[in-house]
C-alpha cells in the first residue's frame, strides 16, 4: 500500500535531487526559449509606441523582468538558506549557492538596463535615488554572499555563514520594492500592482508578463544545472558519484 505514496523527502538527498534536476532542467530551458521568442515578438512587433517615451520605453521588457528576478531570487535564496540553518539539510545550502550567481547577474542587468533607460529619459546614467541605491545594495549583498562562500574552505561552514548573511540582507528586498512609495524618487512607481488595475496598454502588459515568466524559467533551468555541478563537486568522494560516472 505504502509503495504508492510518493516519498517527496527522498528528493531532499543530493543524490536523488541530482538525477531529478537532470530530468527537469531541459523542460524549463525549452519553456524559457519558447517564451522568450514570444515575448520578444510582442516586445518589438505587437506592443505599440509609447505616447511619452516613444520607442525608448521598450527597455521595460528586459528591465522589469531582470529587476523582479533579482529580488525574487534573493527571497528564494534566503528561504533555502534559512531552511538549511533550521533543519541542517545539505541540499538547502547547495540550492542557495546555485541561485546566488544568477541573482547577482540579474541585479547587474537591472542596474545597467536601468541606467541605459535613465540616460535618455532622465538625462542621467545614475542618480542616488532610493530605488537605485537599494538595488545597488542588493548587488553588493549577492557579491558578499559569493565572496564569503569562496573564502571558507569547508562547504558546510560556508553554507551556515552565507545563510546568516542572506537572512540579514533580506530586509533590503521590501526596501527596494516600496522605495518608490516611501520616498519621493525619480524612478517611476509600479506599473503593475496587485491592488490596482495596471497603468499600461494590454499588449505592453502581456509582453512584460511573458518576459517575466520566460526569465523565471531561465533562472530555474540555470539553478538546476548549477546545483548539479555543485552536488558533483561536493559529493565527489561518494560511491554514487563514482557509479554515476561509469
Amino acid at each position: 500500500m505504502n509503495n504508492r505514496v510518493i516519498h517527496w523527502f527522498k528528493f531532499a538527498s543530493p543524490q536523488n535531487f541530482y538525477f531529478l534536476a537532470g530530468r527537469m532542467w531541459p523542460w524549463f530551458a525549452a519553456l524559457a526559449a519558447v517564451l522568450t521568442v514570444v515575448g520578444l515578438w510582442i516586445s518589438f512587433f505587437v506592443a505599440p509606441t509609447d505616447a511619452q517615451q516613444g520607442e525608448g520605453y521598450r527597455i521595460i521588457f528586459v528591465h522589469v523582468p531582470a529587476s523582479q528576478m533579482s529580488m525574487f531570487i534573493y527571497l528564494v535564496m534566503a528561504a533555502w538558506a534559512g531552511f538549511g540553518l533550521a533543519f541542517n539539510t545539505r541540499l538547502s545550502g547547495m540550492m542557495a549557492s546555485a541561485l546566488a550567481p544568477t541573482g547577482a547577474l540579474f541585479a547587474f542587468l537591472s542596474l545597467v538596463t536601468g541606467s541605459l533607460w535613465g540616460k535618455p529619459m532622465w538625462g542621467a546614467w545614475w542618480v542616488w535615488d532610493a530605488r537605485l541605491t537599494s538595488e545597488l545594495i542588493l548587488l553588493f549583498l549577492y557579491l558578499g554572499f559569493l565572496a564569503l562562500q569562496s573564502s571558507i574552505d569547508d562547504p558546510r561552514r560556508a553554507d551556515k555563514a552565507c545563510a546568516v548573511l542572506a537572512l540579514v540582507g533580506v530586509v533590503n528586498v521590501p526596501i527596494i520594492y516600496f522605495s518608490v512609495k516611501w520616498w519621493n524618487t525619480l524612478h517611476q512607481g509600479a506599473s503593475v500592482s496587485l491592488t490596482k488595475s495596471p497603468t499600461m496598454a494590454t499588449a505592453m502588459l502581456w509582453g512584460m508578463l511573458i518576459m517575466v515568466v520566460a526569465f523565471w524559467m531561465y533562472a530555474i533551468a540555470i539553478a538546476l544545472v548549477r546545483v548539479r555541478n555543485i552536488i558533483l563537486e561536493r559529493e565527489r568522494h561518494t560511491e554514487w558519484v563514482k557509479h554515476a560516472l561509469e
Partner: protein
Amino acid sequence: MHWNSVSEFFAMGGYAFYVWGSFGLTALVAVLEVLLLRNQRKTILRELRSELLSEGSSS
C-alpha cells in the same frame, strides 16, 4: 506592425543605442552564463574521471 522599414526598426525612434544595448547585454549575459556552466560541468567530469582512473590503477 508599426515599422515601415527595416532601418526604421533598427533605429528604434532614435533610441537604438539604449534599446539594443539593453537587449544585447541581457542576451550576452545569458549566453555567457550558459557557456560558463557547461564548461564548469565538463571540467568537473574530467577531474572526477581522472580521479577515478588513478584510484582504479592503484588498488
